[in-house]
């Protein structure tokens, strides 16, 4: 009989399944390595639907009596689950989604983001654009909250003039019109945030458009899984990330090789966050039981674990303070992957700390 139950809700079926699968695999890798039989992980598929995620969370809380929830990939699903779960006194550790509301006014002592705050990777791209001396970037993102956060994040650290700012449609697959706009705008660089298939489509069409400008984006569109589908079109793109497989940290090297050995593929960002989240949780479980909420919370907050990202600590709003890097897409043999080329922002916390009542 396990003493601590963890509910991992993530997307395992349908279009966005690859992200959830990596999250789960990273998380379970760490759990296996720890070999603790007093911790039971229950995994369920949310189908990327908010109402299903809520239902699973209810089931985990009511029937399985879990102590800790984790695993959600998408911000809108997190917004559906996290407030209700924390209101019921459960802990939620985020492996990816970290929307602005939950970092600012809506922060909660039982909610910890182990990944980042959503804006961070875009901020890194903005900082990079500024340091490279670009004066007319063209920026675009889909028209939904995460897209707005993205462009705001970029602008926050870039701060200069823009050649154009465009919101595309969510799920758009054809970017001919945007490419024409870019060509006509006289831009000197491009920043885009187009998660999933949108990014693949854009990059392929960009490569074929004859436009040759430096391209930047957040790490999501250049993740291990996606790069193979984009191919050459992605080479040379700069992207902001708080992790990379070549990050020179001992814990990271161990993680990458263990992941490759177990699953036969390179780990992605999501796998890294899943792995870190599990290790953070294990480190806290060593010190306290979740039933003793205050002690457990303090143990989490101490972040006393070996992060694959090296430096890692929590700010007052329970979001990480960490370095954020710029990676470049390269080809290693037959495999497309990333390497770190610069540190964009050191010890970055998040823009919303001040709004959070926890100080």
């Amino acid at each position, binding site marked *: 009989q396990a003493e601590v139950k963890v509910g991992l809700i993530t997307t395992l079926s349908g279009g966005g*399944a690859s992200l959830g699968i990596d999250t789960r695999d990273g998380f379970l890798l760490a759990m296996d390595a720890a070999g603790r039989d007093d911790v039971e992980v229950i995994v369920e598929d949310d189908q990327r639907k908010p109402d299903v995620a809520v239902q699973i969370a209810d089931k985990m809380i009511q029937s399985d009596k879990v102590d800790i929830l984790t695993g959600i990939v998408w911000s809108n699903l997190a917004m559906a689950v996290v407030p209700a779960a924390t209101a019921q006194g459960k802990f939620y550790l985020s492996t990816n989604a970290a929307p602005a509301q939950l970092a600012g006014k809506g922060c909660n002592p039982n909610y910890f983001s182990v990944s980042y705050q959503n804006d961070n990777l875009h901020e890194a791209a903005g900082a990079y654009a500024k340091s490279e001396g670009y004066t007319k970037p063209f920026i675009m993102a889909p028209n939904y909250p995460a897209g707005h956060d993205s462009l705001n994040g970029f602008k926050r650290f870039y701060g200069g003039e823009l050649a154009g700012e465009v919101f595309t449609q969510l799920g758009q*697959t054809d970017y001919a*019109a945007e490419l*024409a706009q870019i060509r006509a705008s006289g831009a000197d660089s491009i920043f885009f945030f187009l998660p999933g298939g949108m990014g*693949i489509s854009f990059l*392929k069409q960009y490569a074929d458009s*004859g436009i040759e400008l430096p391209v930047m984006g957040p790490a999501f569109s250049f993740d291990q899984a996606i790069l193979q589908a984009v191919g050459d079109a992605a080479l040379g793109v700069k992207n902001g990330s708080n992790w990379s497989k070549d990050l020179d940290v001992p814990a990271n090297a161990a993680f990458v090789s263990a992941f490759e050995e177990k699953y036969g593929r390179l780990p992605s960002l999501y796998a890294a966050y899943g792995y870190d989240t599990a290790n953070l949780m294990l480190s806290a479980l060593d010190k306290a039981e979740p039933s003793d909420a205050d002690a457990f919370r303090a143990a989490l907050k101490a972040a006393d674990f070996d992060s694959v990202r090296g430096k890692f600590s929590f700010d007052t709003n329970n979001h990480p303070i960490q370095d954020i890097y710029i990676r470049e897409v390269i080809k290693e043999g037959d495999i497309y992957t990333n390497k770190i080329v610069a540190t964009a922002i050191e010890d970055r916390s998040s823009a919303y700390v001040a709004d959070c009542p926890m100080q």
Partner: protein
Amino acid sequence: MSPILLAEQVLNGLQSGVMLFLMAAGLTLIFGVMGLINLAHGSLYMVGAFAAAAVAGLTGSFLLALVAALAAAAAAGALVELLVIRRLYAKDHLDQVLATFALILIFSEGTRWLFGSFPLYLDIPEALSGTVTLPGGIAYPAYRLALIGVGIAVALGLWWLNARTRLGIRIRAGENDREMIAALGVDISKLYTLVFALGAALAGLAGALVGAIQSVQVGMGEPVLILAFVVIVIGGIGSIKGALIGALLVGLTDTLGGVLLPELFKLFTDPASAAASGSAFASMAIYILMAAVLIWRPTGLFGARA
């Protein structure tokens, strides 16, 4: 916005319309001709794209990939018709909706099971990469021009098949009264299998062609399915001409809406929120277009009057 950019955007709209037509063509054929609501059309589109990506990965030949896409989608279509669709003709539209919805689930997860959850790589052929300079100095991707060519060829071929061949006439007769056409000595079952396979093959072709400039992944079919339905409904069900014109209208509305509406809103607010609200309206534009067309002409632009 300069006139030349505007011209380029119009061209983009037309081109995206032709691409849409390619997707909608097979659906019109099955939907209009056989009277079957085939929600699984998007899945056949996906099957084509995956078959193409797999074969391109193995052989490196885009042409072989296209052949594979056609073959795989046609085979999947024929199989589906024989096993499932065949039992649905006599049932009403609702059963067709449910059954083909079930097929989506089976196809999507089956594909994921075979190919994994990660998107696949499929790129345009070397010969068609890069751009061509059009009059007026517009640099236009060669591959997209080729797509326009294929779309027009498909349109002509389908129109000819449907209106001019005895096969087409019999198929349409079967849509009116299946029992009667059989009583006149036509093996309507075989005919329908054929049509379904043909429609599926067109979907597969579209999947492979469009997949090369978009992403080949599970679930790629559903958004396309909706757009394809929008197109054929605007054009009028069963009309190839309608599908083509509907596709062009939708392509233009979508492209120009996305470009012009934010510009328009800039007259009233700051650029960032103009971009946002303009884009919000742009995403509703094609549906507003469709509703307006149907309110004005309840059976689409070229549909038979009810």
